[in-house]
């Protein structure tokens, strides 16, 4: 399609203006409503919109290459200052564990990088080792340990270091939590909740079995000082997210264990993922291609399950359909299904550089901090490439 429009190659030359006057035949650029150096509107639209047709979406690719329109004399390269001018973020909703915002003027490649980093590369703390002293409950040790691992710990992971293979667990890389629950005989069954995990700021309390019988007793961690004496945790004890059921105990059953949490990333195991999910969708654009009046307007409103359309009174008891809330569109395509005439009346588009981004935090960090961390991680990746290449 672009070749038909780019009828002249001389556009690229420096004396284009002179040539334009000399030129006799038809040239697209001589049309009055065409801006020079700008792509024709329909091609620009193909670059910025996904067209959602009843069977499948078209124009899904993001046009990237800087020379895509060179033959038309249009420079497609990105300049950082134009990115700076056009990039916008608008926060739609924000609370302590969920955030929704619009990110406008960025390519899907980068938006997707942020999403991927949020899910798999922003570190958190999670229980990695469980020392079970006693477990007479019906839940097997390994299942119990797995359940414990998935409990989010409310602590800023930036205050901790990674525990590498030959490190000893110390106050900088390990959080120790204790759980001791018992259901006495004669009592009804009881439920063990995550808030029963108690933080041990001085490290493990379980004595290690030593090989030499006369050696000094040691525990499974070697803390040089109590974590509660560190300024970041003074008056701010480490806890887990509450009200998560860990196990149920019958009369006479007991669980006694110690759980050691370490820093990790979601790509190693999902328990370290700081988000429940992080996702984005492209902004839906619903366009009415012709005026939809009377009965048809009523039908259109009935067709749409998410309430995108509304009816406007045009006076004299006449009615007209309007697009009231295009953001609500879920791309179910009900409005263009069925009778073919609807395809010609309603167009569904997605704006390629407008992302509705949603982040659900598990509780370790607030969502806006998570996003900032994700962006920093992408920066660090770039930095690493630059230093490796220099």
């Amino acid at each position: 399609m672009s070749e038909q429009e780019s009828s002249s190659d001389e556009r690229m030359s420096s004396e284009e203006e002179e040539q334009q006057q000399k030129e006799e035949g038809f040239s697209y650029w001589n049309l009055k409503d065409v801006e020079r150096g700008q792509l024709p509107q329909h091609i620009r639209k193909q670059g910025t919109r996904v067209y959602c047709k009843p069977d499948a979406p078209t124009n899904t690719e993001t046009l990237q290459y800087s020379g895509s329109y060179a033959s038309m004399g249009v420079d497609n390269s990105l300049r950082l200052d134009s990115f700076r001018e056009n990039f916008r973020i608008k926060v739609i909703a924000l609370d302590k564990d969920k955030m929704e915002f619009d990110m406008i003027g960025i390519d899907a490649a980068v938006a997707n990088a942020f999403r991927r980093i949020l899910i798999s590369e922003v570190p958190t703390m999670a229980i990695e080792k469980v020392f079970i002293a006693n477990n007479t409950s019906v839940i097997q040790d390994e299942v119990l340990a797995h359940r414990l691992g998935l409990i989010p710990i409310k602590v800023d992971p930036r205050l901790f270091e990674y525990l590498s293979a030959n490190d000893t667990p110390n106050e900088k890389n390990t959080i120790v939590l204790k759980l001791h629950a018992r259901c006495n005989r004669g009592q009804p069954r009881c439920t063990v909740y995550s808030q029963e995990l108690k933080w041990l700021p001085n490290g493990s309390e379980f004595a290690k079995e030593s090989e030499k019988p006369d050696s000094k007793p040691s525990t499974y961690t070697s803390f040089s000082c109590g974590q509660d004496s560190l300024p970041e945790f003074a008056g701010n004890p480490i806890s887990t997210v509450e009200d998560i059921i860990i196990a149920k105990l019958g009369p006479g059953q007991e669980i006694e264990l110690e759980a050691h949490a370490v820093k990790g990333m979601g790509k190693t195991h999902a328990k370290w993922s700081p988000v429940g999910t992080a996702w984005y969708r492209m902004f839906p654009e619903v366009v009415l291609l012709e005026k939809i009046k009377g009965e048809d307007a009523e039908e259109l409103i009935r067709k749409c399950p998410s309430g995108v359309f509304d009816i406007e009174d045009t006076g004299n008891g006449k009615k007209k359909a309007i697009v009231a809330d295009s953001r609500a569109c879920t791309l179910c395509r009900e409005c263009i299904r069925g009778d073919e005439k609807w395809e010609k009346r309603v167009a569904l588009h997605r704006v390629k550089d407008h992302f509705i981004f949603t982040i659900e935090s598990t509780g370790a960090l607030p969502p806006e901090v998570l996003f900032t961390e994700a962006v920093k991680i992408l920066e660090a990746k770039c930095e690493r490439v630059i230093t490796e290449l220099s």
Partner: protein
Amino acid sequence: MEHGSVRDPSSATFCFVDEDHTLASSVRFALNQDPRVSFCGYSIPHPSDAKVNIRVQTTGDPAREVLKDACQNLMVMCQHVRSTLDQAVDDYRSNHSDMDTK
């Protein structure tokens, strides 16, 4: 990170170890925006190897420098995203505290 290139410095393949689509796709995007690039693309040779190969061919400049510039641009973009987000969050918070007091 290795660097495989031939005699001609204007085209080269770079191998990023411990990276995946996250970085490769973003870098490809940044490279594509650069008018000095005549071709670029990436591939992950095998899904169980944590490696990506990034191919860069330029119109004459050394591929290594062009790739560095692309990363630099990506970093500048990230910094801008961060400051824009901070601003947006501040705006949201100030608007909302207004609504609370009313």
